[in-house]
């Protein structure tokens, strides 16, 4: 279907996920009048990722459009025409020649670029234990994956999820509420350990168990066993054998940086960019999940996997490419919904941060404030949107760490929302 093409564009974007699509959109709203070409290796129209492990997975396939895209489209069907953006789906980039400013696609086509943007996202880390290739052992990344998984979930009774990260637990809670017996196996001693405090992680462990999910922590998968080519159980390192007719692997992602690396760009936990989102080549940029960038106030280099990171990067880069760039300094925020529990996170926590608890986990409404060197660095809110909104405001006022101390937060009757009203944003 894809024949060879020969085109060039002022700005070429690789990847039509949240980051690439927002960049194309924002370039036009910033007034960019040059040519824009957007390439994606997936066929079909661009779609939203967050619903795939949540509402999309929970929805009855009978009431969803046969195309499976209904309800998750990122933009309307007229978007590319109205914004005069060249969209080339089902076309993977094979290599980049930086000297001649040219891409070669896997179909042999050549594409010239003025400036090039990587919005290539991330790919699922594979599981390497024996049996990982059995029928019924699946990952969740694309809309295609989600559609297949949703269909398979409908005819499964015993589900094992490997990895208690965000995607794994979101899926597990959907599978549980659809009536499956669900087991989650996690190597770390608490869920979502990389992103969450111990208090919040332990709260979610208890909450998932209360939903009837079997959660094995500090447990490794030794092998996946099959009946012929079809999965039938998972064996753990401690000797448990868990029956399964569906195994979902959610053991994290790796930045899709292979193409950039092959082109000789500097890689540092993803494609390394500066505060203006430029790579080590001044005509090449990277945004979203694939890019590692410096946090403005601290200089700490991070690579984040979130919609907000993707779209804020995109908006910031659109300004850079239009000659109005300022250093990227957005406060990161994240969310998850698991079994009706709403988790919202502002800022970034790390091992060793000091916790201050507002509210009580027993009431299923609380926030954990996280401090480093007596400065607020992150707030995790469980069913407490008011605290999350306040936290974003407080953190934005101080770039990386808000003007709130442990003593402030532990004072009697302390209220985060009231405190945030005293804070001047941008101050």
């Amino acid at each position, binding site marked *: 279907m894809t024949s060879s093409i020969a085109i060039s564009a002022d700005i070429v974007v690789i990847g039509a996920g949240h980051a690439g699509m927002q960049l194309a959109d924002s370039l036009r709203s910033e007034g960019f009048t040059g040519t824009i070409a957007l390439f994606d290796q997936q066929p079909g129209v661009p779609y939203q990722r967050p619903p795939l492990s949540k509402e999309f997975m929970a929805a009855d396939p009978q009431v969803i459009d046969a195309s499976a895209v209904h309800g998750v489209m990122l933009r*309307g*069907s007229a*978007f590319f025409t109205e914004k005069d953006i060249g969209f080339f789906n089902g076309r993977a980039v094979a290599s980049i020649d930086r000297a001649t400013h040219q891409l070669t696609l896997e179909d042999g086509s050549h594409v010239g670029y003025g400036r090039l943007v990587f919005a290539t996202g991330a790919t699922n880390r594979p599981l390497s234990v024996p049996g990982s290739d059995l029928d019924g052992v699946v990952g969740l990344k694309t809309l295609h994956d989600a559609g297949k998984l949703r269909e398979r979930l409908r005819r499964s009774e015993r589900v094992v999820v490997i990895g208690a990260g965000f995607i794994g637990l979101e899926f597990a809670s959907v599978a549980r509420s659809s009536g499956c017996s669900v087991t989650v196996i996690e190597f770390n001693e608490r869920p979502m350990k990389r992103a969450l405090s111990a208090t919040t992680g332990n709260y979610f462990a208890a909450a998932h168990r209360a939903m009837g999910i079997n959660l094995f922590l500090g447990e490794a998968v030794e092998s996946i066993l099959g009946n012929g080519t079809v999965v039938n159980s998972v064996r753990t390192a401690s000797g448990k054998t868990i029956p399964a007719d569906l195994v979902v692997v959610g053991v994290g992602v790796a930045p899709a940086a292979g193409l950039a690396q092959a082109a000789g760009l500097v890689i540092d936990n993803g494609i390394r960019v500066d505060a203006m989102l430029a790579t080590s080549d001044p005509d090449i940029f990277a945004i979203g999940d694939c890019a590692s960038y410096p946090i403005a106030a601290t200089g700490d280099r991070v690579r984040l996997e979130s*919609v907000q990171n993707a779209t804020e990067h995109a908006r910031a880069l659109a300004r850079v490419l239009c000659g109005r760039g300022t250093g990227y300094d957005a406060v990161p925020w994240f*969310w998850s*919904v698991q079994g009706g529990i*709403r988790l919202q996170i502002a800022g970034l926590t790390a091992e060793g941060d000091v916790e201050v608890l507002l509210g009580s986990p027993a009431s299923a409404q609380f926030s954990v404030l996280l401090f480093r060197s007596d400065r607020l660095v992150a707030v995790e809110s469980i069913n407490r*949107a008011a605290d*999350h*909104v306040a936290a974003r405001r407080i953190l934005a006022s101080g770039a990386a760490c808000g003007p709130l101390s442990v003593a402030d937060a532990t004072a009697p009757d302390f209220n985060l929302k009231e405190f945030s009203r005293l804070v001047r944003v941008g101050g």
Partner: protein
Amino acid sequence: MATIIYLNANGETQTVQQDKPVSVMRAAIENGIDGIVGECGGQAMCATCHVYVDDGYLDRLPPISDDEAEMLDCTAADRDDARSRLGCQLLVGSPENDLDEIVVNLPATQV
């Protein structure tokens, strides 16, 4: 039948009509209405589908949840205590509520 009329900050009007129930946010995305972002996909998490509901429809809206009420404090454009809602929480054309038609004003900015 769902009918949604969007008035943008420049005073232009765009109308979306469809048979299936749809949220004010989703209908805007699928029909290329500029002025609604809907970044979180409809979970009242991002506050980028902020609309000002026309006065004539305020008494027919679904009740506002605590989450939506708090997230409305995150909107880029000023909140109007009476008229501000998140478009993702306004389902139009559903047999479950009394809202087959709505007129919303779009704020000048969502981010």
